[in-house]
């Protein structure tokens, strides 16, 4: 995510339009998308497109995901399902800046796009590298996440409470996981040993 390219798009507000629920097959059950969720998805998708991520042709749905996944990518990479109920565990709707979750969705979808574009070549499901891959993508996404928050702060943007709470959640999970030895399973050069605090967060 190129921070410098975010500026022209910070204040973009996109109208809710054309959001249909796609079928989600056995990976989960699609749920009706509430208007604020659909609006947030539209904003997140358009924002990511504006900063150079390839989201054209990707359908976004509100998924009641099987298992504990907060987001799921279909095998063909063309559908990303978001489980809003799980996002709420990390950031309750009453948290400033969390309404509709647009900023959170930017981060979550960015993570899924890394899986689609970079993740599956070297780390396939069911292989030992899968866990290593998840750590690598989590760390890379955290870097973009902090850059996103920093950019908002530097440009007098909106509330960052939700984004910072989400960042703290990821940082705590990742660092605890690495500290307890999870990445010792990685072969070759593993992911970073820790995710640092984001200076833009209080």
């Amino acid at each position, binding site marked *: 995510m190129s921070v410098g390219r975010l500026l022209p798009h910070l204040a973009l507000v996109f109208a809710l339009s054309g959001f249909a629920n796609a079928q989600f097959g*056995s990976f989960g059950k699609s749920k009706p998308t509430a208007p604020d969720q659909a609006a947030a998805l539209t904003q997140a998708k358009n924002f990511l497109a504006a900063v150079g991520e390839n989201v054209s042709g990707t359908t976004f749905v509100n998924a009641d995901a099987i*298992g504990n996944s907060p987001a799921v990518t279909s095998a063909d990479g063309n559908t990303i399902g978001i489980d809003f109920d*799980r996002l709420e565990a990390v950031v309750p709707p009453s948290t400033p800046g969390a309404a509709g979750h647009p900023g959170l969705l930017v981060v979550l979808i960015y993570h899924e796009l890394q899986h689609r574009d970079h993740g599956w070549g070297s780390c396939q499901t*069911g292989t030992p590298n899968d866990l290593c891959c998840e750590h690598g993508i*989590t760390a890379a996404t955290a870097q973009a996440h902090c850059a996103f928050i920093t950019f908002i702060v530097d440009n007098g943007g909106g509330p960052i409470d939700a984004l910072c709470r989400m960042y703290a959640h990821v940082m705590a999970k990742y660092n605890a996981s690495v500290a307890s030895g999870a990445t010792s399973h990685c072969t070759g050069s593993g992911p970073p040993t820790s995710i640092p605090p984001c200076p833009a967060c209080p």
Partner: protein
Amino acid sequence: MARPMPRYLLTAFALLITASVVLATVFIQQPTPSDVEPPRELIKAPILGSVGKAARSDLVRSWYDWDTLDKLVTVQRRERETTTSAWSEQVQELTTSYFVVDVRPVCGPNHQISELFVTGVYPAGQSCIERWVFTYPATAIPVGGGYVPLAQRRFPGVSRQEILRTSQYGHIRSIEPDPQGRFVLFLTHEQHVLYRKPLPTGDVVVELAVATEPYLAQMQQVIIQRHVTQGAMIHLSPASRWHASPGAVRDSMLMIDSTNDGVFETRLRLTDAQWESAGYQDTAAWVNLCP
């Protein structure tokens, strides 16, 4: 003037030091029992927001989570007095003496997690299943009345019962309790067998073996669902419990108990297209077992 040390003594000292270093190195590198972690595929990764969601209403919500290597299960609860009030939160952390591999809830009538079924593996290699029963304190109305926010209440009590502890089945990958409490299912990691353990007591029996259904070897998690018209179903999914993973294997399996008598008489393997044409992707087709 001191006499020089005899050569044989020097040699002996050198040998002693060398042996000590070698022994110390071997000792340090020798894994202790606590180093024997579960297979890496069973270690939960730090997925963003990867939590199990359980009870959910306008006023009460709860989630559960676990950390494999930290041997920790977390129950997160939120509650508010009215739909316009602020949420109050309570996070209950429960440690184990085994590596936690999977956790599944049973929900009570009051939008609460009433039980958790926890599976894992002890450092010495024995797999286990425990049943944790929560006892919630009465919603205290203090003298003078008034609502007590959740954060100011004590944690629910937890009673832990060991259901299984054995090396007989290898590692357990996934568990699922019957919502009516009649049994708990568990899917093994190495042998790819789906077992049923009757509750509260009874011998473990094979529910489905890979010899009968070779596709079972591709399944990673087991879920019990209830269709609004077709009865109870065991849903076996190729997706990881904590991260759905795109890949070549996509078909799911369903085992159907149309009369909900505990006997799953029909077994189906469904592609995504078949899943959709059967209407299973529709949330309204399923009973919410954790209201």
